[in-house]
């Protein structure tokens, strides 16, 4: 499946694993709960690691492990839950995370500009036909009033 990363359409290399699914080869994305549970095992995984965080999660739990993690997915259960915007800001602004931060789940096409400003640099669409919309909406505004990550 294709996603947007750094303003371009690319192939997604990650496999999303449920908490009870067996580890697969290649790049994988697991929940924060699973990361905490299977941390040692996962550190030995040969592919890249992605961790999914939910609005109710605490980014501080991940702060000391960020060097092992290539991708953090902000998994929107509800587009109106703005905590994930602060999580993104904290990951970039406080913990200086340099890897990929990707929006997934039920965020709105109309939120991608804001998401990009708090440090989200990748977007997984619900449907492939949303890819051009995301690319376009990333440029909703050419001006800004306040500092954030971008």
């Amino acid at each position, binding site marked *: 499946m294709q996603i947007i990363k750094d303003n371009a359409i690319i192939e997604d290399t990650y496999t999303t694993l449920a908490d009870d699914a067996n580890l697969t080869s290649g790049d994988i994305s697991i929940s924060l709960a699973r990361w905490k549970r299977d941390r040692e095992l996962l550190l030995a995984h040969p592919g890249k690691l992605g961790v999914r965080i939910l609005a109710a999660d605490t980014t501080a739990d991940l702060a000391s492990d960020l060097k092992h993690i290539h991708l953090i997915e902000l998994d929107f259960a509800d587009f109106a*839950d*703005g*905590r994930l915007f602060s999580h993104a800001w904290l990951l970039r602004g406080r913990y200086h995370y340099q890897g990929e931060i990707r929006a997934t789940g039920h965020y709105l096409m*109309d939120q991608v500009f*804001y998401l990009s400003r708090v440090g989200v640099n990748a977007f997984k669409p619900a449907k492939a036909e949303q890819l051009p919309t995301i690319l376009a909406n990333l440029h909703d505004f050419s*001006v800004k009033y306040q500092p954030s990550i971008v």
Partner: protein
Amino acid sequence: MYQYNEQDQTLVEERATQYRRQTEDFLKGELTEDQFRALRLRNGLYIQTHAPMLRIAVPYGLLNSKQLRKLAHIAREFDKGYCHFTTRQNVQFNWPELERVPDILDELASVQMHSIQTSGNCMRNTTSDHLAGVAIDEIEDPRPYCEIIRQWTTLHPEFDYLPRKFKIAVSGALQDRAATQLHDIGVHLVKNDAGETGFRILVGGGLGRTPIIGQVIRPFLERKHLLSYLEAILRIYNLFGRRDNKYKARIKILVKETGLEQFSEMVEAEWRQIKDGMELTDERIEVIKAHFTPPLYDANASQDQSLAAQLSANPAFATWYQYNTAAHRVPGYRAAFISLKAPDSPPGDMTDTQLDAVADLADRYSFGKIRSTHRQNLILADVKQADLFTLWQTLTSLKLATPNIGTVTDIICCPGLDFCSLANAGSIGVVQEINEALDNIDYVHDIGDVKINMSGCMNGCAHQSVGHIGILGVDKKGAEWYQITLGGSSENEAAIGERLGPAVARDEVTQAITTILDVYVKQRQEEESFLDMVKRVGITPFKERVYADH
């Protein structure tokens, strides 16, 4: 007044374009009702009982004549010829068509206006003192800081999906005319011992279902740290404010449940990590301040002899002067209120003709500027005393000179059941009935400073819980009933009103109000205000009389 630069103009135009797309997506079925609801609310568009309602931002209550004429034009072309001023200094149109709202936004953008963040769970319009810059008790003009906050809050990427709405009010005077203690954040300009301007920051105030008075979280914040401190509060609120129950989602509940001390520690810890590097420079503050330099006042304004003569010759003018004008810091000038509380029209409403006429008056007499107040009136803030008589004559012919500012008929009122889909009960009709019962202006003046606030439901848009007399419409088995409270205040001695007793029926409200006023007139001590008397005697004497026949 703040004038847009290229960046400001680009922002409102791009926002209008974005909203046009969102509307089109919704009409094409590409956005669900829920999704579009969140987006349209962030643009001030509610779906009301009869039609959508569009709320337009009036930053800290400041308008120029060109903008007022644009509002008149929109009232004519897109609405039914009138608009409504709100308790947060904004303007509402009650009859726009959803499909045409993008066109309204284009019209607004052409005069540096917009409806960004006038509703929804985001940071709302920053409000302030309606006498800012002219008040005699002012420490410093709050408007430059309001504008700095306005810009910071506008399209803030991190804080647009908060647990609930978020309101900031700023006061720069000794008397709080902006109800700052009843806002999510209240900002007071203060001076420290060294004479430097800074801010006292209050947090956790609010009205609605659970009215709470804000508490001081920081007695003195250096001026340069204003935005980092706001950011720290907002980040803590965004992360920890309750999202499980919308009636417990305001910051006041977070502060209450966490405790001020612990909440304050969380904010300060966050703030310490971000404050360096986010400072407001003196240069930036000066750039914004330059937009609010005083107009070119006539140095000879106080030489005028005509005012004294007209005041003694014309009692009606003298009465208007006494109630509807306020002292001005410049000799020979007054701030003139435009009462939107004529007895026979809904509080806060204005017709297109009145809007155009007031724009002309502003150009002629007040440097082209108009202010809206949180009690739903307008002000021409810089009127030469020699011009007051002709201004009064014109306002009288426009039905905008009812001499009732600060009196019992200067009632704050929400649209109520007539327009609002949230309301449980009518409010405009109740207010009209009270007005009819109080049609003796001498009696009204004798009663003096009594503030009645009337809301049609417990969301409390008309701030009934801080009215000296509060009236709250409730639904009881399909009938409209009204709860009365006494002793509330949104001023320096902010207080939440106490319930008088059981709700009264629709046909008993006016009687209850006139009875309360009668008790006051009979039992007050010399020069004692209504609020002071309620403080002295409590609610019992009022309660006994109001419920005497039950």
